């Protein structure tokens, strides 16, 4: 029997993202892993993929898979930690899918877990700066938001946008977050809130930056769909990379790794359904839409402001509130994104009545270092 998907999501679970001073990596891992496995009917797992960017830095733990597996009572299953910055989740899923393909059958457990709030904000910024070139960018004190700011400046200048236009991203994400019980920010935001918020890296303000959150999200990926439930399959994925040294890129207004990943995942012409973009910063969400080919270069912000990407349209973006409202759980963020679109495709609360059959997830590492784009379908 020919599989129509690379893998099926037969179980999933997330922890509402937040500041968990009372829970560590192992507690968060166990919570979501066990829930996801139960939802999948407790199948045999061939491998556990742990997606985490910060486990050594804030958890002070190498080889974390062993500790987590032990704590959750999962025995004799190889656990592999995948680290690719804030894109760890997407790359863990990609790796798990490849493993499924080579195994031919069976299930994989993918768990994204990260705890930025074990340390104070200045330290979080320092660890975030590790996403950049350590010797030539972070060395001088740069953090990813500084480079995002340069991209935002050039994009707004090239396409004649005002900051108020960009502020719409935060407003719309907060609007969506307000309806999502799993969001970190559940309060709607007004334009005045955004404009009054402090500058982080000119011209980006606090509202343009997704907040760091502790979080854990799990998926059970299987080669065959669960016969008793709606089958959501990851149909394909595509990978792309850009120059690692930001300054040497040709164009600071395009996420070229996302462009490449979108090309690799297959023709996205006429896509309609739900989309999840990795909006670490507002500008990354905007640029991702253009890089995915969902609209023409330079038009995303205008269309966003016109409501083109809202619920009810052909292309519905970040209905869970994106990283902006759900939070940036670093290595876990890609898994949260995947769970988000799965819930949207299934019509689980609060995403009832969407009637979407296709989904797209874009997970990106750092500032357009590399990206992976997934396409999903409801498979009947």
């Amino acid at each position, binding site marked *: 029997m020919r599989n129509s998907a690379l893998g099926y999501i037969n179980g999933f679970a997330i922890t509402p993202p937040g500041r968990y001073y009372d829970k560590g990596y192992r507690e968060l891992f166990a919570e979501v892993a066990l829930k996801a496995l139960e939802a999948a009917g407790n199948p045999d797992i061939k491998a556990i993929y742990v997606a985490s960017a910060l486990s050594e830095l804030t958890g002070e733990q190498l080889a974390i898979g062993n500790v987590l597996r032990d704590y959750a009572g999962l025995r004799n299953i190889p656990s592999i930690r995948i680290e690719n910055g804030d894109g760890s989740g997407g790359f863990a899923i990609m790796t798990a899918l490849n493993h499924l393909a080579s195994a031919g059958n069976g299930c994989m457990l993918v768990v994204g877990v990260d705890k930025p709030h074990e340390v*104070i*904000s*200045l*330290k979080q*910024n*320092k660890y*975030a*700066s590790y996403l950049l*070139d350590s*010797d*030539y*960018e*972070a*060395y*001088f*004190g*740069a*953090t990813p*938001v*500084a480079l995002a*700011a*340069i991209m935002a*400046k*050039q994009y707004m200048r090239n396409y004649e946008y005002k900051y108020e236009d960009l502020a719409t991203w935060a407003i719309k994400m907060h609007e969506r977050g307000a309806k999502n019980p799993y969001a970190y920010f559940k309060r709607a935001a007004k334009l005045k809130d955004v404009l009054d918020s*402090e*500058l*982080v*890296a*000119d*011209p980006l303000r606090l509202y343009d*930056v997704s907040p760091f959150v502790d979080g854990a999200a799990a998926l059970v990926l299987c080669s065959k769909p669960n016969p008793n439930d709606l089958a959501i399959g990851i149909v394909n994925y595509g990978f792309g990379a850009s120059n690692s*040294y*930001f*300054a*040497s890129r040709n164009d*600071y207004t395009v996420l070229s790794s996302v462009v490449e990943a979108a090309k690799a995942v297959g023709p996205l012409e006429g896509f309609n359904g739900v989309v999840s973009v990795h909006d670490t910063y507002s500008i990354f969400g905007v640029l991702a839409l253009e890089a995915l080919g969902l609209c023409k270069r330079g038009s995303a912000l205008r269309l966003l402001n016109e409501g083109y990407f809202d619920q009810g349209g052909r292309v519905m973006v970040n209905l869970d509130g994106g990283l902006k409202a759900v939070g940036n759980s670093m290595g876990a963020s890609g898994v949260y994104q995947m769970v988000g679109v799965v819930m949207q495709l299934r019509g689980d609360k609060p995403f009832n009545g969407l009637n979407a059959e296709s989904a797209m997830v874009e997970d990106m590492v750092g500032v357009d270092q590399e990206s992976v784009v997934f396409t999903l379908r409801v498979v009947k």
Partner: protein
Amino acid sequence: MVDQNLSVPKYWRKIPQYYRLTAVKCRKCGRVYFPPRAVCECGSREFDEYELPRRGKLIEYTVLRSVTSDFEKQRPLAFGIADLGGVRVFGQLVDCPNPDKLSEGAEVEVVFRRVKEDSDYGIIYYGFKLRPVKGCW
């Protein structure tokens, strides 16, 4: 001994790049890479050292206010991308308290400055920074 948080070898290895912007130039096709790399786009692995010119034009800049723990006392930090003889380099912008006064394509010079230090007892890191020639007053 006091705990050393900043690696010495990691810094010392890069002294030619940090102090003199030493790039590499492909012997086969002439392409210049900064930061240096091992293999050229054309496939060649043979390079010559080449110091980037110390004057150029500013392409873009930003001011970072939410800094890392190492730079808490130096905030805000201005950053710029400069074109130095056709090679784009990212660096801190210094002696520029009002960057909004900078004109597009402003001339910048490369200067030698302190980057950070490992508390009162550890190593001092030095490196290149970019300075608008006409100032930002």
